[in-house]
């Protein structure tokens, strides 16, 4: 694969443009930022409720949900936007300009990473500040895991958008790629209680590590395992971006 060195100018241009597009779309922006907070509140209400005394269910499920939202949302947003970029001809135009594939991907990852950071700060603030989620580790690390998760979602979304011809198909990749990870990430059944085969599958799915990191942060104040998990998530995200780069073709039939 022939990759030109990164150009910060072009990368920032792409990131700035993507952010302008999101900012212009008020409904999407509101959904991106407010929806996760509302859903987490719903979850808290279901399990612990305003009257419930310091319940443990929300403390158990909350962290996993904090890891899931940025992943799901960014996966969806990225797969649809890059598909639009492929089908509208703008990607072809950019690739005919002095733009490297990594500039393009990096720009997207940076823009969505920034949105994810804001989204996560809001969701974490609501969870910890208002809903009383118990966090033993540093709260900022919780946010960092969420951002890594969002970049992971972006990377996988970029990759699968190459296999979809329409936005309709792109959205269908959500249940195919994301839901198995949600089922096996330890939210429903703790991962060590899964049947052996499923446990092994769960070990190679990136969301498992993100959820694991979140759960560690809420339970203990030691961060060694969290950094390990974070490195695995980041590794998957980079691999996803590399695979995504391979699907951006300058020459097409």
């Amino acid at each position, binding site marked *: 694969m022939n990759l030109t060195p990164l150009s910060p100018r072009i990368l920032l241009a792409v990131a700035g443009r993507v952010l302008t597009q999101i900012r212009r779309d008020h409904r999407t922006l509101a959904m991106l930022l407010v929806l996760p907070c509302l859903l987490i509140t719903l979850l808290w209400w279901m399990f612990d409720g305003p009257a419930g005394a310091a319940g443990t269910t929300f403390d158990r499920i909350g962290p996993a949900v904090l890891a899931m939202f940025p992943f799901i949302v960014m996966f969806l947003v990225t797969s649809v936007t890059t598909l639009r970029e492929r089908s509208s001809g703008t990607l072809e135009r950019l690739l005919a300009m002095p733009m490297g594939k990594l500039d393009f991907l990096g720009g997207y990852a940076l823009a969505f990473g920034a949105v994810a950071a804001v989204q996560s700060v809001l969701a974490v603030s609501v969870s910890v500040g208002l809903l009383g989620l118990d966090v033993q580790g540093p709260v900022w690390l919780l946010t960092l895991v969420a951002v890594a998760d969002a970049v992971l979602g972006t990377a996988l979304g970029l990759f699968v958008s190459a296999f979809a011809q329409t936005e309709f198909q792109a959205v269908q990749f959500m249940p195919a790629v994301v839901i198995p990870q949600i089922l096996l990430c330890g939210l429903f059944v703790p991962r060590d209680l899964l049947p052996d085969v499923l446990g092994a599958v769960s070990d190679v799915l990136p969301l498992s590590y993100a959820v694991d990191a979140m759960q560690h942060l809420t339970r203990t104040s030691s961060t060694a395992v969290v950094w390990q998990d974070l490195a695995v998530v980041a590794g998957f995200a980079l691999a996803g971006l590399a695979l995504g780069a391979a699907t951006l073709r*300058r020459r*097409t039939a």
Partner: protein
Amino acid sequence: MLTDLDLTIGGGVTGLLGPSGCGKSTLMRALVGVQRVAGGEVTVFGEPGGSKALRNRVGYVTQAASVYDDLTVAENLKFFARVLAVGPDEVDRAIESVDLRSHRDQVVGRLSGGQRSRVSLAVALLTTPDLLVLDEPTVGLDPVLRRDLWALFHRLADDGAAVLVSSHVMDEAERCDRLLLMREGRILADGTPTEIKEKTATHDVESAFLAIVEQDAA
């Protein structure tokens, strides 16, 4: 599928004319280097088509407007200007040259089809390309605007650029310095409009095209 193609495109405005589906876009995409080429060689300014050295020198406008519908005219141009490393003056000049100054701050998705394709054209005019490849840039435009755009193509050609314009409308042929008539993946005729008409003893390019097709079949 293009067959037996051996041609050289020089300065001036070259018109690539032929019916829809005859291979005009494929030929243009091969020149720009976004078409997967099965065999043969495409050379632009001595370099293989689409190579890195050419990306600053070749401007390409696709048939569909390749711009962002959710950004304004100015935002679109500013973005591409940053990618191409050109300044804000060039943005103003490009908007001016496609006559969209009054729509500068409008979102592209709300513009008419003709206006959108002009935004797309403006992006190609941000740099001063040595070769400008335009795929049906005037389709569906108002006659006044069509005239102005052809005048613009000639101005660019006079400034030293090679301009290759495709069209399936034969009456645009008269506006070109040189014509390439294309059908079913082959170039049937190559010459100035006058030469082609004289050779076939016809009065307009449309009849010349028909005469050549019939000769070819015979």
